[in-house]
């Protein structure tokens, strides 16, 4: 019993450490004072300022578009890869796997600048195509992990039964595999979306001149000093993340818990 009390006490301290800065940020986005001074005075001023900041809104829309395309590409490429790789032998599979986790173990600053140098070697300027490729490379492992975990759980006998009953491969894929896989594809897509939406490093290196994304805008605002509308947009991002994580957790409850075992 004493152990449990100490355990909960410790957990609460850790959770305060994790959540306090974020909670303060959200509270301050509703504080009237420009510099977050106390006493707290409720105001939606900074949200009003935010929504009249055209540059920030445009950056947010661009980031959403980039993240959406990245997520779709990751899910399509990842599903195809995971379906195809099942039929290879284990050594080839291990090779595929190490390629997939590769972008996870190389710091993003190295991936970003090496893609910039690739553009230079090809004689090209920074462009959205390379930016998207960069985003796909770093988001891909997350999508694959979720889709792969679900595929492993799936019983291949069901697919064999489908073949035995005379369905061809396409019908089996459309009627059996895809419906069973779709929650994982959705969850993997959400994860890839979030990685891409938040990604500062790759965008920073690869964004075309004169363009911007939300994380880049946030970064430069922070560097130039304190702007309260950054509190507001950060709070919106955090709230949206919370919502998405909840959706993923509901979609993937069983598979996610199994990933931790």
């Amino acid at each position, binding site marked *: 019993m004493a*152990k*449990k009390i100490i355990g*909960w006490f*410790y*957990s609460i301290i*850790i*959770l305060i*450490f*994790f*959540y306090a*800065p*974020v909670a*303060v*940020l959200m509270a*301050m986005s509703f504080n009237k004072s420009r*510099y*977050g*001074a106390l006493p707290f005075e409720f105001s939606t001023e900074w949200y009003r300022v935010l929504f009249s900041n055209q540059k920030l809104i445009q950056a947010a829309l661009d980031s959403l578009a980039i993240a959406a395309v990245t997520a779709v590409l990751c899910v399509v*490429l990842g599903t*195809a*890869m995971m379906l*195809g790789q099942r*039929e*290879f032998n284990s050594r080839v599979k291990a090779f*595929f796997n190490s*390629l*997939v986790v*590769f972008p996870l*173990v*190389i*710091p993003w*600053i*190295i*991936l970003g*600048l*090496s*893609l*910039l*140098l*690739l553009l*230079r070697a090809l004689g090209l300027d920074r462009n959205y195509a390379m930016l998207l*490729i*960069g985003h*796909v*490379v770093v988001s*891909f492992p997350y999508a694959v992990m979720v889709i792969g975990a679900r595929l492993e759980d799936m019983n291949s006998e069901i697919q064999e039964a489908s073949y035995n009953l005379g369905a061809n491969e396409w019908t089996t894929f459309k009627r059996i595999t895809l419906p069973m896989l779709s929650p994982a594809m959705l969850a993997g897509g959400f994860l890839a979306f979030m990685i891409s939406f*938040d990604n*500062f*490093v790759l965008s920073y290196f690869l964004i075309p001149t004169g363009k911007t994304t939300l994380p880049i805008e*946030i*970064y430069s605002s*922070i560097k130039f000093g304190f702007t309260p509308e950054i509190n507001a947009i*950060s709070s919106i*991002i*955090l709230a949206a*993340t*919370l919502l998405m*994580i909840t959706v993923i957790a509901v979609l993937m409850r069983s598979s996610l818990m199994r990933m*931790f*075992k």
Partner: protein
Amino acid sequence: MKKKALLVSPAMFILIAFAVVPLFIMLYFSFISDGGVPGFTLENYARFFSKPLYLALTWKTIKMSALVTLISILVGYPMAYIIAKIIKSGREILLLLIIIPFWSSQLVRAYSWMNLLRDGGILQDFLAKLHLFKGGELGILFTQTAVIIGLVHIFCPYMIITSYMTLEKIDDSVLEASKSLGANPITTFLRVILPMSKAGIVTGAILIFVPCLGSFVEPRILGGVNGSVIGTVIQDQFFEIYGWNFGAAIAFILLAMVLVSMGVMSAVNRRGEENG
């Protein structure tokens, strides 16, 4: 045969062409002079290793990453143990609460500490109210301490999750056995629990140490002028000074540090498996 290759190849092409090949291109550029000296040259590497400033920053980066990793172990491992072995009801909620910050924007989380740590910010007010802090300025923001706090906040969840995954697998009956054979809790911890969960700690350490080596956003935001590390030096070469080839050489040195540290840690892990 053809179909499975067709399914796998688009993803493999992207990963090889845009994650592996660019590293070799980076290596190539690191041997080209920024100053226009023709042909291959070791100039960039010579410049890095002959300047005490760069060596000092390399050492600072390694120390910072090691400290963040160590603090994350000391803070995160007990948390993982509590979730795996002590609090059994409410475990899913706790795990979820730890995963949520892990998925929220790193940039926003680093920034959120600015509000707290600023001189005259919330933390200073709070400490003053508790009479733990008297007058003057807090003086944490724009120091190395702020960078370390921010990095631990961002990366500690990795340690909790990887340690939890190994601790959870240890059967309670093993712990009972150790106890009934007369081992006290400390002996049980050192001889049973720790060796059996070492793999999780090592994996977590890699997942923390490596990105810390390459970090530049958090040091910039929270460390200000005191935050220079290898990552910020590379960033400056690409965005301020336009010494791209020199930047490529530093990035390659960073990559070498990453690979060596991963090699060392996975060797530690393997030795543990043989002994265990």
